[in-house]
């Protein structure tokens, strides 16, 4: 299909209006999400400290039960009563501190009587010098974890079984698989962020959660229509290459599952972005692997009842089995 058939004029007019509306909406969403979002939970950039007092430069959890601190100057008090570490969600139960050791370079190693998880969120309080500090993994590490989990551990195709219709339909040839993978990832990110903005700033404050499905499917349809129109007008070459995949995306349930999952866990803008990107990349990866295997399958002798879809399902089963090896993969372990 190199050129689309005669266009229905009504759709053009409607889509022109939609294009403008959507453009405005996107700019608004971008502005809103770029505005500083108040951090969830207690965050305290330390109480005011006299200039001479040692400052806490870094705090990191080391498995199985150590907390490593680095100060700008040596500490006066090193007794265990000087330190209090709790889980962020259990602030009333201090974790028993067994031992405080010093290390060169104003470092302290606190050993606790209980297992600590580097991925958890802790809270450290020091009496002298008075300071409070949240101890948690860096944001980029958390985002990378979300992305890796979405792409590999909980791969949407092989462990959550979503988007199978498109998956089996488009994985016959490698170049179509690559085209679909790229298009899908981009549209996924676009849709997920727009849905996230609508959910966070409109549906949730107005208690309209029951309209979620209606709104999200509307967003998908609008984004696809918008990109289709834009691409045809501005980059006809690109449109010839990728336009067909755009139309197919509307019937892929992953594009709807990601906004729903984001809404379910009420994630922040960065988490939503990481999940969208991870699931897109995961789908593209699955599609690519499958298309490589299916191109080879054409040269194999398949028993007649198994020809076509049944053997493709068996292949997907083998991939799913291989992907089980990723479960338990942990960035922090």
């Amino acid at each position, binding site marked *: 299909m190199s050129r689309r058939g005669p266009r229905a*004029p*009504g759709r*053009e*007019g*409607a889509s*022109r*209006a939609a*294009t*403008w509306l959507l*453009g405005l909406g996107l700019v608004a969403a971008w502005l809103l999400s770029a505005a500083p979002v108040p951090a969830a*939970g*207690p965050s305290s950039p330390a109480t005011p400290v006299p200039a001479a007092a040692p400052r806490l430069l870094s705090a990191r959890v080391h498995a199985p039960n150590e907390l490593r601190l680095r100060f700008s100057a040596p500490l006066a008090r090193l007794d265990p009563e000087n330190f209090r570490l*709790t889980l962020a*969600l*259990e*602030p*009333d*139960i201090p974790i028993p501190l067994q031992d405080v050791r010093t290390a060169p370079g104003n470092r302290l190693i606190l050993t606790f009587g*209980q*297992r600590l*998880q580097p*991925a958890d969120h802790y809270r450290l309080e020091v009496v002298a010098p008075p300071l409070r500090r949240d101890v948690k993994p860096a944001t980029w590490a958390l985002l990378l974890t979300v992305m890796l989990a979405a792409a590999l*551990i*909980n791969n949407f195709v092989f*462990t959550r079984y979503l988007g199978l219709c498109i998956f089996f339909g488009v994985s016959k040839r490698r170049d179509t698989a690559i085209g679909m993978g790229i298009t899908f990832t981009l549209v996924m990110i676009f849709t997920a962020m727009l849905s996230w903005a609508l959910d966070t700033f409109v549906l949730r404050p107005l208690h309209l959660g*029951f*309209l979620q499905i*209606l709104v999200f499917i509307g967003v998908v349809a609008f984004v696809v229509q918008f990109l289709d*129109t*834009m691409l045809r*007008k*501005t980059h006809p070459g690109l449109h010839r290459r990728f336009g067909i995949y755009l139309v197919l995306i509307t019937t892929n349930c992953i594009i709807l599952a990601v906004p729903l999952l984001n809404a379910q866990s009420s994630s922040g803008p960065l988490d939503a972005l990481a999940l969208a990107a991870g699931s897109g990349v995961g789908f593209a990866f699955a599609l690519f692997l499958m298309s490589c295997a299916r191109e080879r399958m054409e040269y194999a002798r398949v028993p007649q009842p198994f020809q076509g879809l049944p053997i493709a399902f068996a292949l997907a089963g083998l991939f799913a089995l291989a992907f*089980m090896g990723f*479960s*338990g993969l942990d960035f922090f372990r």
Partner: protein
Amino acid sequence: MTLHVIQPRPRLTGREIGRIVLSMTMACLVGAAVLGAVYLGTDRYRRAATETSEREAIRDMLGLGADARLIEVRQYLAPALRRVVYLAAPFGGAAGRAREVIFTLDGALAGERSLSAPVAEPRGLLPLSRLFVALRGRELAGFVVEGRAQGYKSVIRFFVAMRPDFEIVDMRVIETQDDPGLGAEVAQPWFREQYVGRTAEEIAHLTVTRDPMPEDWKAALIAFARRAPDGPARHLALLQRERRRPVYAVTGATISSRAVTDGVKNTVDHFRRRWWLLAPHLEGQL
């Protein structure tokens, strides 16, 4: 954005655009109205269903009759003030007074008062945990505490039921998304019933072993979980031998087994410490 390239379509009359817009708007409005009506109609039942299933689970775990009363205690954090707030009220919005008790992070009492009507969801407070207290008449009948642990792939949520002397009566996994063969088995009766019958002191020193579980113990645990007539007797007979031994891990799921055991340990320990602080101040409720 290069929107200016889009050419106007001459063939579309204004009247037709109007009809299209009207058609879409009507469809959206009717749809939203239908959904709003369905939401209003079903929301009551959804809340009631959640409440009933929790009530049934708690009754079943503690072996309570219909006459028992349940009190739900919710724990919140007031982040700015560094206070822990407990709200105790009859479970599921039943008639009765609510009580609010506030502590500092170090466990000193910072305030207590009775509320005439239970507050649904207090503003500005961060929810931390929930627990349920069961009463038979004026007498304490047991506790159910919600706990969580990081499993192999997902977070495992569970309920631990305790007698008033903190001996474990039951343990149930409420939610896990781990795969079968890779951790989902911690929800199996023969694994979770291993905690039952141990005292709080024994739980505090519980370890996990990868040794295979003795066949007679596994059979007794399954009989006990199925409420077989001879279940309690068989369980009790072997418990005398097993209570000094560690918990047997699920084969191939040692990480999840350890995580759940640590989770039960912490849940019981933290609950006991909180309860000693809280119990004297719940007079109006107990």
